[in-house]
Each structure stands twice: as structure tokens, then as C-alpha cells.
């Protein structure tokens, strides 16, 4: 059993006095791989912001070990007008770790180079971030999160709007990060099949519904109906989950 690093106890999350989701009990251990799924507006982002400490819990308790977060936002939220290079963007990951007056050190540069090499972007380091494809931008943002040297990596809808090869290549990279770097990973996605097949634990979240546990334990048609207010069919094909909305299946 790995060491527990994050624990939500009877937590209610939301903004101001408006509760978005309540009854949250989560215990996350080192090297956990957790998927967060739920309908739009269910509170996935609010849960992440609460975890990061950017918003306070309305009720309950959150205890965190000495952990450092690496955060990968939805890439559509990062659209700079200034011509930042890939290297510039990844270097920003180091900014939170050094003081205002401290210059960028050779150690910072080495870590940035290593992060770029790990995600296979070294050749593109001098390219303009705006000129990259969606998949390359997402990898750049992952490299920036790695440059923080995190213990916990949070990815918010990383494969949104990607073509199929980039989509699976990115999921492979995320799995590799978990296996090789032993990172604790939170993956937010609306793609149920993806999440079910790569994570170990899953959080199902909706306004008045919350479930957390091992994938095999939580992933059921009843739980999905309770979360999405829609019917789903879950099947196993060659050992992999295939989750289909019932209306799609009928068609």
C-alpha cells in the first residue's frame, strides 16, 4: 500500500456559498492514476481547483502531503499573441520555483531540455508555440508541467479536439509518465472509454452524485446512469472497456 498523499473528507466544493458538489471523500496514494469524469458543469474543474488550493472548500477537510503539482490546462485556454517559443513556454514551469531576483540558471535550462526530450519535442524547442499542431501544443504544456518536477500531475481534457493518432499517442505518453516517472496522475476527460482503460481509480462526479474507487468497482451501468442521467452499455472487448451510450447502440 502506497503512502496516502491527498485526502478529502466530507468535502463540499463550490464558489462562494454556491455548492457545486458535496459528500466528497477521496483518499489518494502515491503513484495513483485517477480519472475524473462527469457531465459538463458537474464540478470536475471545481474539484481540481479545490485540490490545487485555488478555491477553498465550503465544508469538510482537505489534507495534503508535501506535494508539488504540475498542471496541464486545456490547450484552447492558452492562445498567446506574443511569439513565445516552445522553450519559453516550458521555461515558465521553472518560474514558480525560483525567486524574483534569481536569474534563470543552467540547472533550470537543463531541466527544461530534459522535459522537452522526454516528450519528444527537443527538435521543436525554437519553434513558435502558435505554429504548432494541437498535439504538439499539448505536449509542450505537458513538458512545462514536467519542468516543475511534480509529484502530482493534473491533466484537464488533454485529448480534446485531437485527431485519432495524436489522441492515442498522447494517452500513451500519459501512461508512460505514470509508469516510468511514478507520478500520481489526475486525468479529467469526458471520454469515458479512454479513462476507463488507462486509469486505476475513477471519480464519477455530478451535482448530487459522487463515487470514487477502483475502476472495476465503480464502473457500472447504474453508476454511469446516476452520473449522466443517461443509459450506457459497458462491454469488455479483448480485455478493454468499450462504453457506449444506449441511443448510439440502437442506431
Amino acid at each position, binding site marked *: 500500500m502506497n503512502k496516502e498523499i491527498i485526502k478529502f473528507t466530507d468535502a463540499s466544493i463550490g*464558489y462562494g456559498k454556491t455548492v457545486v458538489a458535496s459528500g466528497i471523500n477521496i483518499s489518494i496514494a502515491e503513484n495513483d492514476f485517477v480519472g475524473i469524469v462527469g457531465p459538463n458543469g458537474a464540478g470536475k474543474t471545481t474539484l481540481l481547483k479545490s485540490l*490545487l488550493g*485555488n478555491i477553498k472548500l465550503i465544508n469538510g477537510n482537505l489534507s495534503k502531503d508535501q506535494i508539488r*503539482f*504540475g*498542471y*496541464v*490546462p486545456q490547450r484552447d*485556454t*492558452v492562445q*498567446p*499573441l*506574443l*511569439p*513565445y*517559443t516552445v522553450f*519559453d*513556454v516550458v521555461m*515558465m*514551469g521553472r*518560474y*514558480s520555483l*525560483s525567486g*524574483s*531576483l534569481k536569474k534563470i540558471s543552467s540547472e533550470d535550462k537543463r531541466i527544461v531540455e530534459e522535459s522537452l526530450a522526454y516528450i519528444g519535442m527537443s527538435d521543436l524547442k525554437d519553434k*513558435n508555440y502558435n505554429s504548432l499542431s494541437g498535439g504538439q501544443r499539448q505536449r509542450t*504544456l505537458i513538458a*512545462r508541467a514536467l519542468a*516543475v518536477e511534480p509529484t502530482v500531475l*493534473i491533466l484537464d481534457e488533454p485529448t480534446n479536439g485531437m485527431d485519432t493518432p495524436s489522441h492515442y499517442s498522447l494517452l500513451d505518453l500519459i501512461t508512460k509518465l505514470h509508469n516510468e516517472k511514478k507520478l500520481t496522475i489526475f486525468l479529467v476527460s469526458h471520454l469515458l472509454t479512454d479513462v476507463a482503460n488507462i486509469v486505476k481509480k475513477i471519480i464519477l462526479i455530478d451535482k448530487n452524485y459522487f463515487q470514487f474507487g477502483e475502476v472495476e468497482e465503480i464502473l457500472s451501468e447504474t453508476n454511469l446512469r446516476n452520473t449522466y442521467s443517461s443509459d450506457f452499455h459497458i462491454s469488455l472487448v479483448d480485455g478493454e472497456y468499450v462504453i457506449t451510450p444506449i441511443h448510439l447502440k440502437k442506431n
Partner: protein
Amino acid sequence: METLYQLVELFPYAILGSILAGVICSFLGIFIVSQRVVFLGAVLTQVAIAGVAFSFLHIIHIETFIANILGVSIQENNFLQNFEPIFYSLLFAILTVIVFSQTHHQKYLTQDGILGIIFVVAIAVRIMFIQKSPIADIAEVESILKGDILFISQKEFIILALILIFTLSVFTIFRKQLQFVTFDAESASAHGINSKVWLLIFYIIVGTGISLTTRFVGDVFAFAYLIIPSSIGILISKKVKNVFLISVLVGAIVPPISIYFAFKFDFSSGPTAVVTAFLLFLIVFIIKKLRG
């Protein structure tokens, strides 16, 4: 050449002040344009003017208050004379940016909508303040409110120099934080940088720079030099460093050249500076378009 000598002899601080004002606006403009809050620049220029108009009502005598605290006479102190317009334009602008910086995460109105409301209210209250001003001639008040490059004095030149030093110092010292939060505030917060506080600091610096510059060179000049040089920099440059270099160079070189043209052909200096910068922008844009 004779015109140039006359200009330098008659308006030395106008030339030097226009360079400083151009550099301040073009530098801040890079952040305004890249943050996609161009309208904030327009709003701040109008809010600053409303602040100056408010000072003419003499409701609270800040100058007397400060003079009493410092134990000096207003008449003998050059700095305290005309301190109220600067104080109120700065106060109004800072209050505006504080309100604006808190609107990022609210979901009821767009930021543009909020800026639009502040914009029209600033213009409306300016008119109301002027109507109640003890100065009888409204045209005279308007001309005082809007500033003029040609009338930049030694004192105003020094204030502009101080604003430039202050702005550049803050952006140099806190480059990392300000660069990260203006690039991607959400991730900066997630990585432990307090985006709310840093964005507030950013907007206060922007508000200070724009309000004081507007006071001395006018709203048209200030707003134009917030947008045009940085747009030229973004159009031409392939590196962030060069965007800053080109924008600041345009901000420094074009205003004194346009003052020369204004003087030679008897135009108002502010509008001439704007049109000259626009023509440069047009040339750069066409060349960029032709080169594909």
C-alpha cells in the same frame, strides 16, 4: 533644418517627453494587446480624464492636506501645485483596474461589457464634473483635461521619466511572475503563483502608467501608442524579445518625428503623432501581407 532648430529651442521638453510617453505606452501596450484587453486602454484614458475633471470641483483639497502634513506652503512647492489632477486621475484609474482585475472569474458579464459600462460612465461623469466646475469656459477645461504634448514642462518630463523607471523596474524584477500570469493565469495559479495578486499588480502598473501619461499627452496619443507600436512589433517579430524592442523603438522614434511634422505643417501634435504611427503600421501591414 531651421524648423527643427526652432522646435528644439521652443519645445525641448515636448520632444523628450513625447519620447518617454511613447516608450511607456508602447511598452505597456504589448501586455494590453497580448492580454486581449485593448479596450481597457481606452477605458483608462477616459477614466483618467474623469479623475482630472473631478479635481476641478475641489471637493477635497488633497494639496492642502498634504501641504499641512509636510508643513510646506503650496505656493512655494512646485510639486504640490497641480497635484490634485494627477492624484485623482491616478486614483480613478487604480480603482478601475482593481474592479476590473476582480472580474476575471465572474460569469454574469463579459469583461468587454464591464469595460463598456465603465467607459460610458467615465465620459458621462466627466461632462457632469465639467458642468459644475468653477472654470467658466468648457472648451478651456476640455483642453486642460486632455493634455497636449507640446505643453509638456520640465516637471512633467521628470514625472514621465519616473513612471518609465518605475514601470521598467517592476517588469524587470517581477518578469517571471508577470510573464507567466499574463501568458496563462490558470496554470500559474496551479503552479503556486498567486495569479490574482500578480494580475492586480499588473493592472495597477498599467493603470498608473496610462493615467499619468494621458494627463500629459492626451487620451488620443496615449491610447494610440498603447495599440499601434505593439501591433507593429507583433506583426514583424518572431521572438518575444524583438516584439519589445520594435514596439519600444516605434514608441520612441515616431512621436518626435511627428511633432516636427505637426510644427512644420501647423497641425495638432497629438493627432499627427497618431496618424504618423498609423501610416507606419499600414506600411508594415501591407509589406507583411505581400510577403505572405
